[in-house]
């Protein structure tokens, strides 16, 4: 790895906000010796901890890695994996890989969009569900595939997918 930016030892005191997640994030940066090259690893960790990358969080990371905020923002927005907006309580990711596409993923997505009343990439107004799409999960053998809250389900039909999603949506309606 290239010359580490002279590793300034940072104090490992509790974060002023009292939020333990910042300490975990700081520990990750420390493990990478605060090298700018670790930016993507750090962003992965931050998103895992906080669910999304808020502006404050990005500034915090830029400061710790001694990078201009523009660079951090640039990287965070370049990669699809990173999200800068909070997600709903549940997530539903429809795979739009070629195998899923050939087997009707577009109809699947359209059905869920209709049911939830949001477009792909959006979150319902009651914050119950985020509907996302994936380029390819590599689960082509069980196409079409949908990920419900992190669990992959294969051979989906609009009916089976709606059943899962409906449950989440109905819970949320008063």
């Amino acid at each position, binding site marked *: 790895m290239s010359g580490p930016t002279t590793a300034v030892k940072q104090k490992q005191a509790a974060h002023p906000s009292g939020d333990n997640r910042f300490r975990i994030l700081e520990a990750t940066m420390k493990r990478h010796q605060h090298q700018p090259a670790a930016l993507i690893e750090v962003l992965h960790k931050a998103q895992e901890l906080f669910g999304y990358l808020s502006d404050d969080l990005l500034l915090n990371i830029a400061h710790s890695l001694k990078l201009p905020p523009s660079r951090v923002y640039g990287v965070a927005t370049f990669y699809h*994996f990173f999200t800068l907006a909070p997600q709903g309580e549940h997530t539903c990711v429809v795979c739009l890989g070629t*195998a899923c596409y*050939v087997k009707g993923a577009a109809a699947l997505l359209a059905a869920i969009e209709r049911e939830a009343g949001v477009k792909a990439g959006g979150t319902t107004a009651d914050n119950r569900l985020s509907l996302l799409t994936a380029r*390819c999960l590599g689960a*082509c053998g069980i196409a079409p595939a949908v990920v419900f809250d992190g669990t992959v389900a294969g051979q989906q039909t609009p009916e089976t997918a709606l059943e899962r999603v409906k449950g989440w949506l109905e819970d949320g309606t008063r």
Partner: protein
Amino acid sequence: MELAELRAIAEREQQRRKPICLRCCMAAGCLSSDARTVKERLEQAIAEAGLQDKVEVRGVGCLRLCSQGPLVQVDPDGTYYANVTPETAPAVIAALAGSGDGEAPAPRTIEPDHPFFARQMPVVLENSGRVDPERIESYIAAGGYQALYHVLHEMTPAEVIDAITRSGLRGRGGAGYPTGLKWATVAKASGERKFVVCNGDEGDPGAFMDRSVLESDPHRILEGMAIAAYAVGATQGYAYVRGEYPLAIRRLELAIRQAKRYGLLGSQIFDTAFDFRVDIRIGAGAFVCGEETALIASIEGQRGTPRPRPPYPAQRGLWGCPTLINNVETFANIVPIIRNGPEWFSGIGAAKSAGTKVFALAGKIRNTGLIEVPMGMTLRTIVEDLGGGTPDGTPVKAVQTGGPSGGCIPATLFDTPVDYESLAQIGSIMGSGGMIVMDEQTSMVDVAHYFMEFCMDESCGKCIPCRVGTVQMERLLSKIRAGQADREDLERLRELCLMVKATSLCGLGQSAPNPVLSTLRYFPEEYEALLVSRQ
């Protein structure tokens, strides 16, 4: 670690084994259909039947027929059980114990002489579905790390490169660059530090070969990388894996930890002066990072944008140092070449395309899953014999190879042998190995539009032909699909394709027009039918 120790580990592992082994597929496909519970039920049923001394259950990597998972294979007789559920699992044990009364519902069996399995030739996947990917001992028992020992103790780096060159191995990422030549270039390049990078950023939608290899046999990749590092003079490696593959990442991380513990990675490996470390870098969802210069930028923590070549990464790669970048499957071929010799490898496959190729067979096909066949096999054999045709028996219309960079091959050309040159000749590419079968219901214009939309979204925006060209081509294709385009639009689309292909900076833009060009070439009537005639 000494060779004797390695052999002792292998022997202990062999002794632990029971006469009958039930191999349960624990790859991502089967896991998503509840394979873990199936495995637990099998273990429970063995205990209940008192067969603990005779039968063992082993979690293994991909058993390949992904569409019919969860899969369980009986060793030694080779029978597969398909679509096993927690309910039907006990019947498998009852059948083994001979106590099957025929009343309990039993899962369907598939014999190993089924063409899907019988026509395959496992080289890359030889351990897949056999070893437990989460236990290094299981890999060592299958002869693992002996090739590395042999290389470190009995071969010079030049001899290793010579062996790889003579084997005729070509890069499995898609372009087919001779691997030996690449290694020789990195070895010759001067630099204080050198790096070895494993490209596991399998971004082609519809391809899952690298995921399966990483999930099924991660040590094979580490051993291949270590041999490469010795040959080119590198001490640090990076495995760049897609963020979409959490299981592959977890198993590779585990494999690295285990290999370190045994001294098979780290300092003074096998008591030689050779040091080698591997770190994982997790991709963050950018197709362009499969391009090697973009991948390097990503490992350096930057936006994944490519840069002009030369200089090639072999001369100036990571942090300006000579860097060897090979695909997962390429690294997986190294161990068998060292073990069996380059002549053995070059004897497999086609003249200029030695060895086997792993394909992910998916789409409208009966037997969906992972196959490994010798190069030069015809598409017809793959689609009809191994794949079993379409699920409903209707004719296959085309096969798409190479993802967004490849092309659609019509059924009339199915006698084309699958090798780098033949596929290029008919306007497609080998690609990394995704093979999507399409039937009469699939509109080729829709497919072309699908891939163009993909490339438009994934264009990194650095060079204008790709950034602007993909948007314009996508608009024209949308217009055609909507039935609003005329002949002039089609002509403009064709011109744009050629321009973007000729002038883009990297492979993404250069190959983005391929799906359009190949469908225009083989299915012009589908475009024509959508045009409005304007006098």
